C-alpha cells in the first residue's frame, strides 16, 4: 500500500509527437472568433474565453472544418506546405494587463492574484506521472521565464519550488522545498500546506510546473498554449492540444482493448474517455491505458461504517456519512459534512472495503448543487432546463490539478 502512492522523482526526456492532420479543440464555453471554412494558422487565436480562463488557439494550421457542440475541428491538407506558426507576446505595463495578455495566450490565470508567496508545484499529480519533473528538468529556460513572468504578475516576495525529495530539481535562484513524494501530497492545496505549514493561507498562490511552463513558453517564445506534455507509460510526449487520444496511443505503440479504461490522467484521478477520438485537452498531464482486469469494480453495497474512508481522507471528511447524504439526494447535508473541502483525490473510494463509488457520489452532489446555484439567481433568464450545459462526449475538465470551487 505504501509504494502504490509513491510519486516519481525521476523523469524521462520529452519527445515530440508529430502533429496530427486533425485536431478537435475543446472550447470550454469560449466564443468562436473564426467561422467554418476559414483558414487558420498554427498558433492563431480561434476563440475567446470570458474571465481569465485562457483563450483557445489553433494547435495546427489548416482550415476550420467543423464546430460540434463545444468543439472546433481544424484539419490540414497533408500536401500543403505548413504555414509558419503565428507568434504573439505577453505584454503589459501592470499586473492586470499581464494577466489579460497571458489569458490571451491561452494560459488560465484568474487565480494568479497578488500574494506574498508563490509556490511552484513540481510534485507529480499522481503516481506514475513524470511530466512535471520532465518539464523542470529539460525545459528550464521556459520554466525560468515563467517564474519571471509570475513574479511580475503576483509580485510575491518569495517564489518557492516544491519538489520531490532527492530529485535535485531547481528553479534558478529560488529556494527549493523538498517533500516526500507521496500521493496525495502533490495536490496543490496539500503542497501549499507542506510549504507554508498552513491550510489554504490567503497570501499564497500555487502554480503547477506544467502551467509555469506554458507561461514561460508564452513569455519567451510567444507561443500560445497549444501543447501539453503527457506521461504515457513512462515516456513523456509533447502533443498538440486537441490531438485525438488515438493519435497519441498510436505514437506510443499502445493499444486499448474492449473493456479497458483509457484515462486522461493516471489511475487515481484520470478521467475516463469513452471514445478514442476524444481530444487531449489543455492541461492534461498523462494518458493511461488500464486493462480491464486491473480496473476498479464498484458495487452498490451499503456502507459498513468501518471509517477507513475518513481515516485516509486528506481533507479529514467523514466521507462515509457525507457520501450517504449525497447518495440519497440530500446535498445540503453533504455540504454540512465537508463536501466543499473535498480535494477529489479518490483515496476514500480506493480504500473502501464495500467498494462504494464514493467519489462519484461526491461529484454528483457537487454537480447538483452547482446546477441549483445556477438556476437560482437569474429569475429573468428564460433558459429551459433542457439547455443546461451537457458535457460533450470525451470532454475532460481542464483544471486537472485543483478542483474549481
Amino acid at each position, binding site marked *: *500500500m505504501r509504494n502504490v502512492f509513491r510519486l516519481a522523482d525521476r523523469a524521462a526526456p520529452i519527445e515530440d509527437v508529430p502533429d496530427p492532420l486533425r485536431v478537435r479543440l475543446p472550447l470550454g464555453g469560449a466564443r468562436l472568433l473564426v467561422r467554418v471554412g476559414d483558414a487558420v494558422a498554427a498558433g492563431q487565436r480561434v476563440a475567446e474565453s470570458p474571465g481569465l480562463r485562457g483563450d483557445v488557439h489553433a494547435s495546427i494550421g489548416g482550415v476550420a472544418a467543423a464546430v460540434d457542440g463545444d468543439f472546433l475541428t481544424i484539419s490540414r491538407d497533408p500536401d500543403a506546405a505548413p504555414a509558419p506558426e503565428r507568434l504573439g507576446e505577453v505584454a503589459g505595463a501592470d499586473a492586470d494587463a499581464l494577466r489579460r495578455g497571458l489569458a490571451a495566450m491561452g494560459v488560465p490565470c484568474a487565480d494568479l492574484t497578488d500574494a506574498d508567496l508563490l509556490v511552484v508545484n513540481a510534485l507529480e499529480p499522481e503516481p506514475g506521472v513524470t511530466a512535471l519533473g520532465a518539464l523542470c528538468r529539460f525545459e528550464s529556460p521556459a520554466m525560468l521565464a515563467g517564474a519571471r513572468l509570475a513574479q511580475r504578475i503576483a509580485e510575491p516576495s518569495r517564489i518557492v519550488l516544491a519538489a520531490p525529495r532527492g530529485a535535485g530539481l531547481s528553479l534558478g535562484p529560488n529556494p527549493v522545498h523538498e517533500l516526500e513524494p507521496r500521493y496525495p501530497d502533490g495536490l496543490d*492545496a496539500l503542497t501549499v500546506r507542506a510549504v507554508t505549514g498552513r*491550510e*489554504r493561507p490567503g497570501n499564497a498562490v500555487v502554480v503547477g510546473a506544467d502551467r509555469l511552463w506554458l507561461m514561460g513558453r508564452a513569455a519567451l517564445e510567444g507561443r500560445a498554449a497549444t501543447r501539453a506534455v503527457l506521461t504515457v507509460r513512462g515516456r513523456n510526449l509533447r502533443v498538440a492540444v486537441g490531438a485525438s487520444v488515438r493519435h497519441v496511443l498510436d505514437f506510443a505503440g499502445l493499444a*486499448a482493448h*474492449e*473493456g479497458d*479504461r*483509457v*484515462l486522461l*490522467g493516471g*489511475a*487515481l484521478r*484520470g*478521467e*475516463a*474517455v*469513452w*471514445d*478514442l477520438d476524444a481530444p487531449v485537452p489543455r492541461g492534461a498531464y498523462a494518458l493511461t491505458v*488500464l486493462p*480491464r482486469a486491473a*480496473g*476498479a*469494480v464498484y458495487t*452498490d*453495497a*451499503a*456502507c*459498513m*461504517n*468501518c*471509517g477507513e474512508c*475518513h*481515516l485516509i481522507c*486528506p*481533507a*479529514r*471528511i*467523514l466521507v*462515509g456519512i457525507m457520501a450517504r447524504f449525497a447518495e440519497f439526494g440530500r446535498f445540503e447535508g453533504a455540504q454540512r459534512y*465537508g463536501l*466543499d*473541502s473535498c*480535494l*477529489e483525490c*479518490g*483515496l476514500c*473510494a*480506493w*480504500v*473502501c*472495503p*464495500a*467498494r462504494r*463509488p464514493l*467519489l*462519484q457520489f461526491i461529484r454528483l452532489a457537487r454537480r447538483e448543487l452547482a446546477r441549483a446555484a445556477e438556476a437560482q439567481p437569474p429569475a429573468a433568464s428564460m433558459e429551459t432546463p433542457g439547455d443546461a450545459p451537457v458535457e460533450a462526449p470525451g470532454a475532460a475538465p481542464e483544471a486537472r490539478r485543483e*478542483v474549481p*470551487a
Partner: protein
Amino acid sequence: MIPLKLTASCPPHVLSGRTVRGLMIETLLALCPAAAMAVWHYGLPALRVMALCAGAAVCAEWAVERLSGRPVRVDDGSALLLGLLTAFLLPATAPWWLALAAAFIAVLLGRELFGGLGGNPLCPPLLGWAICMLSWRGLMKPEFAVLHTELVSPLSELKYQGLAVADRFPALDLLLGQQLSGLGAAQAGALLLGGLWLVLRGRLRPHIPFGFLAGTALMALVLQLLRPGVSAGPLFHLLAGGTVFAAFFLATDPASSPVTRRGMAAYGLFAGAMSVVIRTFGVWIDGAFFAVLLAGLATPMFDRLRPRVFPAPGRG
C-alpha cells in the same frame, strides 16, 4: 469500423483490493487460535456450540436477505463471523436451543432489523448474548457450569470470595484460558495473539483495542488505590473474563463504534473503564460486555469528536 467499447467510470480507477469479505476472513483467521484453545479446554461441546451458532447465523442472514429482496451477500462471511463471535460468548454447556436462540437474536434483532451489515447501532453478538442472559440467566452464566469442569471464574471468585481468592490466579493461567467465561472469551492469550495480528496487518485500527485495555488498566489502578485490599489490580482485570475479547473483537464492531481517531480512542477508554466499574459495583459478573453495549449507545456522541475539515477553497 466497429467502435471499441471502453469502460468509463468515475475515478479512482484502481482500488486497494480490500473487501468486506477479506476483512471478515482475516478476522475469522484471527479467531482460530482462540477457537482451538476453546476446544482444547472444553472439548467437543465447545465445537458443537460454535458450529450451531455459526450455522444458525449464516442461515438466518441468508433467509432474511432472500425474504427481504435484498442482494444476497451472505458469502461475504460477516454472518459467519457474527455467529462465531456469539458462540464465543456462550458457555460450552449451552443447550442447542440456547445457542440457536443467541445466534438468531444476534442476526435478526442485532443486525437485520437495522438494515444489515453496517446498520446496527449495537454490537450484534452482544445483543444476542445480553437478551439470552436476561432470559435464561442460569444457563447462560459460565459460573453455573462448574459442575462440568474444574475451571472457575476469576471474576465471580473476586465478587463473592474477595481479593485474597482472586489473587490466586496466575497471569499465565489466565492467558492460557484456565478460567471460566464464555467459551472463546476466556482464551485471553489466544485472542490477544489474534488481535495483535489484525492490528499489525492493518486490518484493525489500534485506537479502540488499546484504548479499551488502557481504560481497563487505568480504572483498575484507580480503584485499587482508592480501595486497597478490596479491588483487584490492572493485570487481573486485563486478563480475567472477556476483557481481551471485548477490546479486540467486540468493541471494534465497525458499525457500532466511532470512526474518528479521537472518537475511537475516547470510546475505547470509556468502554474499558466502564467494564471495571461494572465489574466492581454492578450486579453482573463480567462488566466488559455490558460496557461495550453502553459505549455503543454513546457512539454518536464520540463521533462528534471529529477533526475540523480542510478549509474549502475561497469563493470568488
